[in-house]
């Protein structure tokens, strides 16, 4: 029964041309986005691999020099491009992927692509994720707004209902047809995406990337499913097609174009991020206080590098300074990043009213281009930096500077450089990502249930005339 209804609806849309035009247009955009995403990604990935390799190679090839100099010059950590960034670049355009690992301070990312972007950046980036989040619902609206309202206007609905069909069956059949129409769009796109992602993924990442893609695609099925039921529900509740489409377009504009901005502004107002100045001042004050305490404890003075600290103890002093700063950095950056994750949590919950927010979070999360993933990279880079520092300081402690005034005269051998392993960061697995996205997934599921309930409610109470 259901299939019969679904098949007829699908065939009708096929024959009236809507499917061709609407789906065709979106499909063209999707393929363009995939192609562009793929070429960007492969370029960036190749570049990043070469750069990271050359960083380590040059580190190993350093001549004999003072370990602290080496620590000051440091190394760069380049964030490897996620294979799934092809379909959803997430926050990557707004956050950099290069961290400079240098002595004495925890660095944040150096450059971000947005600083080099044109003014049109604000309109959005063409990506598969953007198209599906913004244009996907519009497609569902265009294909389904008159599913009930149109039949009601023409008189077919009363004929159908007079046959003794349960309205809910009718709803499910029409929903299946709409989903099938959307599937005509999604399935080729998903296959193409799978192909692109597999090509773009590195060794050993392919399986993980495909798992991510499957979960990611499933999320979009949920998201578009919400709209399928919403559109059908509104169509059933509207007396005319015109009313249906006006209402649906207004809802679409509200949730797609307006809600993300309004909620971000609200978030900014409710829990503002500290300014750079405030953050630095707080951090520096904390660092100084901690450092002073440590120096007082160890050397009995807070005068740095003064007469109370013999040259032979400089290694110890450096080591102590570094070690005492680590918890301070963790505290301050941790607090900042926790605030951001809290803000994002709020946005995900508002996905109950505005599904696009939950979908955006989920899409970025499964693609590996959200802040949670970036945080793992930042943390790993910082852990590596600390490793380098500790190794250098330990060496200095062992080989305390000797000769009188000639500080920084000790030159370490290349064996020291070799004792530092290469920076190896593996992005978290698909299951980790899915675990982190439990909330947005839950919101999407809840949204689907709510909209299905809404559609069932309006369909069973709809007027036949």
């Amino acid at each position, binding site marked *: 029964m259901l299939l019969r209804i679904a098949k007829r609806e699908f065939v009708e849309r096929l024959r009236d041309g809507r499917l061709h035009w609407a789906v065709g247009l979106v499909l063209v955009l999707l393929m363009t986005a995939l192609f562009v995403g793929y070429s960007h990604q492969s370029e960036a990935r190749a*570049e990043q691999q070469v750069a990271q390799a050359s960083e380590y190679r040059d580190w190993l090839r*350093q001549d004999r020099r003072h370990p602290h100099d080496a620590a000051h010059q440091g190394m760069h950590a380049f964030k490897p491009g996620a294979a799934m960034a092809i379909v959803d670049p997430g926050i990557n355009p707004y956050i950099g992927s290069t961290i400079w690992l240098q002595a004495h301070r925890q660095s944040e990312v150096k450059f971000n692509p947005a600083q*080099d972007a044109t003014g049109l950046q604000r309109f959005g980036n063409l990506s598969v994720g953007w198209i599906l989040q913004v244009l996907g619902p519009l497609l569902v609206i265009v294909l389904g707004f008159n599913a009930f309202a149109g039949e009601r206007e023409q008189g077919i609905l009363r004929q159908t209902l007079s046959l003794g069909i349960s309205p809910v069956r009718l709803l499910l059949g029409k929903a299946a047809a709409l989903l099938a129409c959307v599937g005509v769009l999604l399935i080729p796109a998903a296959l193409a995406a799978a192909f692109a992602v597999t090509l773009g993924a590195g060794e050993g990442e392919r399986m993980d990337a495909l798992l991510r893609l499957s979960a990611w695609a499933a999320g979009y099925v949920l998201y578009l499913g919400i709209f399928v039921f919403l559109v059908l529900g509104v169509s059933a509740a509207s007396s005319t097609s015109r009313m249906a489409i006006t209402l649906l377009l207004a809802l679409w504009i509200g949730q797609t174009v307006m809600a993300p901005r309004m909620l971000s502004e609200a978030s900014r107002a409710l829990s503002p*991020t500290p300014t750079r100045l405030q953050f630095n001042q707080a951090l520096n004050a904390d660092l100084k206080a901690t450092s002073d305490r440590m120096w007082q404890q160890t050397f009995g003075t807070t005068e740095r590098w003064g007469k109370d600290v013999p040259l032979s103890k400089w290694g110890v002093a450096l080591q102590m300074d570094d070690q005492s700063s680590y918890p301070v950095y963790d505290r301050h950056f941790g607090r900042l990043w926790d605030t951001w994750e809290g803000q994002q949590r709020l946005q995900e919950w508002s996905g109950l009213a505005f599904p696009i927010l939950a979908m955006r979070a989920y899409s970025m999360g499964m693609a590996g281009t959200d802040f949670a993933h970036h945080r793992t990279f930042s943390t790993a880079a910082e852990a590596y930096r600390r490793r380098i520092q500790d190794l250098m300081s330990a060496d200095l402690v062992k080989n305390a500077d000797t000769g009188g005034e000639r500080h920084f005269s000790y030159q370490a051998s290349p064996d020291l450089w070799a004792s530092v392993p290469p920076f190896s960061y593996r992005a978290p697995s698909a299951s980790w990502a899915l675990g982190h996205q439990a909330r947005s997934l839950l919101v999407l599921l809840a949204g689907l249930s709510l909209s299905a309930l809404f559609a069932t409610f309006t369909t069973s109470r709809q007027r036949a005339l």
Partner: protein
Amino acid sequence: MRQEFKLLSAERSLWAVGLMFLLLIGYAVANGLAQTATRDRAQAAVWEADQSTRAAQRARLEAIRAGLATPLPFDNPADPSGMAGNYGGHHAVLPSAALGPVALGQSDLFPSQFRVTNQSRVGFMNPSDIENPWHLLSGHFDLAFVLVYLMPLLIFAVSYNLLSAERESGTLRLLLSQPLRLRTLLAGKLSVRAVVLLGPAVLLPVGVLLLARQAGLTGTGTAAGTTTMWWAFLVAAYALFWFALVVAVNAFGASSATNAMVLVIAWVLLVLVAPVLLNLAVTQVVPTPSRTELATRTRVLTAEAMKRHADLLATDYEHVGRGAALLPQDGKINISARALGNYAIQRELDDALRPQLERFDRQQQHQQELLGRVGMLSPAAVAFEGMTALAGTGARRHARFVAQTVDFHKTWKGFFYPLIDNRTALVPQDFDRVPAFSWQEEPPALVHRAAAIAVFQLLMPSLLLFGLAAWRLRRLCVS
């Protein structure tokens, strides 16, 4: 026209739309003001911090010269190498323009403050603001957003059935049987709607901005009045484009429902899709040079420079145990070899990287130029760029800020390098002569000319559409 106004005022939907528009604009303007005020406060705090640091350093110098305080190696205001570097660096700040609250634009993406030191530019000219990237991705709810995205929809809502409603209800025949030209009819209908929509779109923000300026909440700047006038023109030209599109669509004589559908599709293509595609096209044709490559090159050059000056770096701290070594003597000061080494390294790095960094600047300029030319394909892009340019949050003003910062950097280096080279100690009077960044605002003529070009780029397609409409209307089927 009075009839039309009466008819229209009876229609509740017009008032509903007008009211909604008013609310949206009100919220957007308030939001813009709040954000700009926050930004201004943050910048003022930075400025004050700089001033108080400088004052404290000056006081310390006086104390040191009076023998009341001992200098430390990293805390010595008499040492020009320290004052030129991180210890004494000063900020270059880009203040908000008078119309800033109107379009927040790129103000959170482009850095608006740099801490200038004698380091190479690549070290300090980076985004420094902290913001949750999710918010950066979402964008702003400012007036530019409401006008560029939402105003066209509201224009559609009140005028999509400009002619088709009259035709469908049969009154068009009756109207045209009077001595009334179709042109006059249309003009009358359009002007009423234009007034209802453009009134709040232009008057409300202008009013609010004037009030805010009186209350000292926003910057003044020269020629703010003329800039505001150009902004009003830009908004009117953008609205005119959409009205022209509505008239053209109506001229084809389709039903109201078809008109509405065509207009919405046009909105999706012109406002949502076209700018995104344009952005993509421009960045493909004129790609940004690689930052990764820049980072690697910086490191390699630094390593080479460090090797060249390894001797200087591997030296001593004479001051240990001998605080007097840090004191200025006869106007000269002993700069530690390591500091001199770092100075030399930064100087060489600065020179070596300059060509590459200039390439970045040139590439951005090319992108902007290309965008200016092809932007015409999307009125939304033209309007948005125009609004941000007038509000001072666009790419051109920012490029000017970058250029002025580079000049300031040169002046800064020009002041401190001779002092370092000659080991001249700083005296308190020097603090008055240390270069300070002073922002030179864009000449109003330049701003207004760019706005005029944008208005022209919006009027051209409008004229074409009106022409198309006129041609079709000749053959209009009245029933």
